[in-house]
């Protein structure tokens, strides 16, 4: 019988885990995660709002307009900070110059769409250096870009894992289509 094996499996649900952070800590950790991932190259030149220390922090308001908030240099927003801290992310171009913001919800929704399609239509990644998987992810990101808007709410470019101008995006879509055709069969 496999009673012992089944018992081991069932006991996985009882594995003790470290205590959860306080809910108030979650947002703070959210910013720390973003920083680590940026450092790892996962989000390249993406700068989190909380890291801005130069005074004016720009964010789209809930109504899609814009608002300017100021924070003392070096001030860390608290975990109960205004919603704008969590809703937008500052984006820089390849020269590390601030160009605008993206709505985090748009970016997350886009990532989930890509992940769902990869899982459904392609396959699971095989390690972190899965070239085809990474190529397909990049191509799908080009075909599903996240708008980057300036302080007036005007689209100034797109986030596809890095910032591109509208012209650069246009010139990339044919190649992205070809990659999707190649790896997904269209």
């Amino acid at each position: 019988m496999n009673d012992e094996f089944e018992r081991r499996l069932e006991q996985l649900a009882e594995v003790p885990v470290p205590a959860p952070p306080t809910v108030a800590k979650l947002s703070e950790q959210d910013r720390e995660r973003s920083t680590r991932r940026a450092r790892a190259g996962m989000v390249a030149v993406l700068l989190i709002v909380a890291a801005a220390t130069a005074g004016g922090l720009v964010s789209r308001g809930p109504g899609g307009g814009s608002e300017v908030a100021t924070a003392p240099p070096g001030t860390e927003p608290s975990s109960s900070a205004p919603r704008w801290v969590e809703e937008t992310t500052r984006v820089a171009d390849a020269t590390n110059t601030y160009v605008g913001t993206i709505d985090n919800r748009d970016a997350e929704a886009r990532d989930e769409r890509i992940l769902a399609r990869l899982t459904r239509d392609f396959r699971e990644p095989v390690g972190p250096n899965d070239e085809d998987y990474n190529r397909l992810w990049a191509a799908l990101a080009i075909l599903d870009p996240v708008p980057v808007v300036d302080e007036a709410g005007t689209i100034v470019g797109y986030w596809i894992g890095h910032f591109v101008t509208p012209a650069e995006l246009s010139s990339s879509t044919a190649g992205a289509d070809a990659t999707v055709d190649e790896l997904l069969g269209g």
Partner: protein
Amino acid sequence: VPEGGAGEARPSCLEVTFETWFEATWPRIVRVALANVRTWEEAEDIASDTCTKLLKRWEHDRPEDPTGWAIAVASNRARKFGPLLHRTFGGSGAAQISDDRMDLDLIDAIRDLPPRQRRAIALRYLGDLTQGQVAELMGVAPGTAAALLNQGRSKLRTRLGGP
């Protein structure tokens, strides 16, 4: 009838606050991430990320099944970011998972399963979900989920020297 499962209480999310849900569900989310990461720090990072997303949606855009949603998202994100997270945390002094109460051989064996079997096993046993919930979250037919679980169990049993 749902399969039984040990683990934390499962509050009805229609009535509970985020804080109550979070405290009750946190362990399951961390455990699911363990199938794709190597340290507690990485697993907690995935769980925190997932719970933060849910917190932002809790008041106005809460998923119908917050627990299933969170476990599925954590599983996806661990699969997607696990290797990169490990690279990021590597050398940072993060403690490797070690606990006398932890069945490390079994967890290591789960990590070596093929991706779909690994996900099914992780959702079922680390996430403490029913077989039906596994099928739903993986977007497969119940029979497919059952097959993946059987194949995964069989490989684990062989790997661990069982009958």
